[in-house]
């Protein structure tokens, strides 16, 4: 399957490895793609942690949905950059992996993940355990061939209501098919949480940008995301209702509360801190 380990896989090679404890790795962002959002940088860190945790429990389970207490957006990564990834696993067993980590570009921090927790589910429900183990051996050894990621198209988001600069709701259409579904995951396609978060961040920035609070010549940019909690799997073709509420700004900062609902059930929540910076 051409898209397996290609269309949504962001660890090319593990360069340092202490089983069950920590790892460092690399991912070369293909130069030809249009963009590599910060959420995908976070995805790369999470995937490195996933490899360490899956290997630790013999590929019986894999972390899927996620809790991320804090994600710090420190710098953007661009197509052509190489991500240097590092994770520290605090604990790992058949039930969950707790970890933190970071990604760097040219020696500078791009993103930092603090206090993340991934519940473990049976690998065989999502992928072939044998294929996963073989892939791990490959990236732990010679490394996987780089440049196989073809980019992702943001989902369609249509604003449906709210109050300008205060709150907003929108419909988000998850595509029926996309290459990343064949990698995430081959046996059970799931819309990646990081793609949902990326769409929610764009939506939150649009809302925050409407507020009159910001000083002239500045615009709000993401600073950190907290309280990320994924509550359910989002299948291909799902229709979500996303919401954003801008809290009262304090100086150059404000917090946007984010939510996503599917079939009248909350499937994801998060808070985004934005900071106004000169444009």
């Amino acid at each position, binding site marked *: 399957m051409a898209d397996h380990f290609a269309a949504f896989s962001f660890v090319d090679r593990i360069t340092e490895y202490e089983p069950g404890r920590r790892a460092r790795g690399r991912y070369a962002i293909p130069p030809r793609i249009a963009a590599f959002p910060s959420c995908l940088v976070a995805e790369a860190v999470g995937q490195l942690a996933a490899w360490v945790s899956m290997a630790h429990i013999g590929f019986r389970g894999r972390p899927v*949905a996620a*809790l991320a*207490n804090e994600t710090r957006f420190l710098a953007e990564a661009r197509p052509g950059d190489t991500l240097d990834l590092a994770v520290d696993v605090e604990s790992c067993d058949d*039930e*969950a992996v*707790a970890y933190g980590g970071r990604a760097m570009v040219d020696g500078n921090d791009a993103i930092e993940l603090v*206090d993340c*927790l991934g*519940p473990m589910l049976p690998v065989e429900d999502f992928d072939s355990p044998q294929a996963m183990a073989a892939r791990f051996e490959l990236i732990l050894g010679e490394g996987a061939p780089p440049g196989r990621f073809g980019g992702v198209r943001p989902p369609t988001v249509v604003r449906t209501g709210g109050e300008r600069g205060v709150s907003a709701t929108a419909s988000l259409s998850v595509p029926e098919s996309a290459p990343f579904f064949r990698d995430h995951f081959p046996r059970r396609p799931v819309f990646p949480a990081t793609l949902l978060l990326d769409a929610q961040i764009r939506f939150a920035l649009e809302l925050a940008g409407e507020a009159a609070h910001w000083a002239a010549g500045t615009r709000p940019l993401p600073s950190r995301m907290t*309280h990320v*909690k*994924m*509550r359910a799997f989002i299948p291909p073709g799902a229709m979500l209702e996303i919401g954003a509420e801008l809290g009262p700004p304090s100086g150059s900062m404000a917090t946007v509360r984010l939510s996503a609902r599917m079939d009248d059930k909350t499937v994801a*929540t998060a808070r985004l801190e934005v900071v106004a910076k000169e444009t």
Partner: protein
Amino acid sequence: MTQAQISREEIDAVLPTVSATIADALGCDVDEVTPDASLIDDLDAESIDFLDMVFRLERAFKVKIPRGKIVENARGALTEAEFEQNGIVTDVGLKQLRDYLSEVPADRFKTPTKVKDIPRLFTTTTFAKLVIAAQRESGVKA
């Protein structure tokens, strides 16, 4: 865990931090997190929230709480067969459960009680007792 030996004073000592931590995890007002509040029925907690709450409590109190073993611990010294049959808690199991969850109002124990519904009984105080048990286990004082 011998929860029966946990004193009211011990619970009161940790309850404010436990309540604040649960409120943070669930994104609700701390005033809603009363000592008797059912985490599922009153505060809409789901399984992912339980994982989140335990994770946050571990950090707040610097202890290790065995995740996913709360129901198993509730069984106490009983074997699985003594505690439940075909997913229903036995009479002797229900007595053990009432002792273990002594903080839960008596009218919340249904007859029959399904094993899968045991987490519905958990309250803020249940988690306070888990923290205290973990503190004792690790030698940390409240």
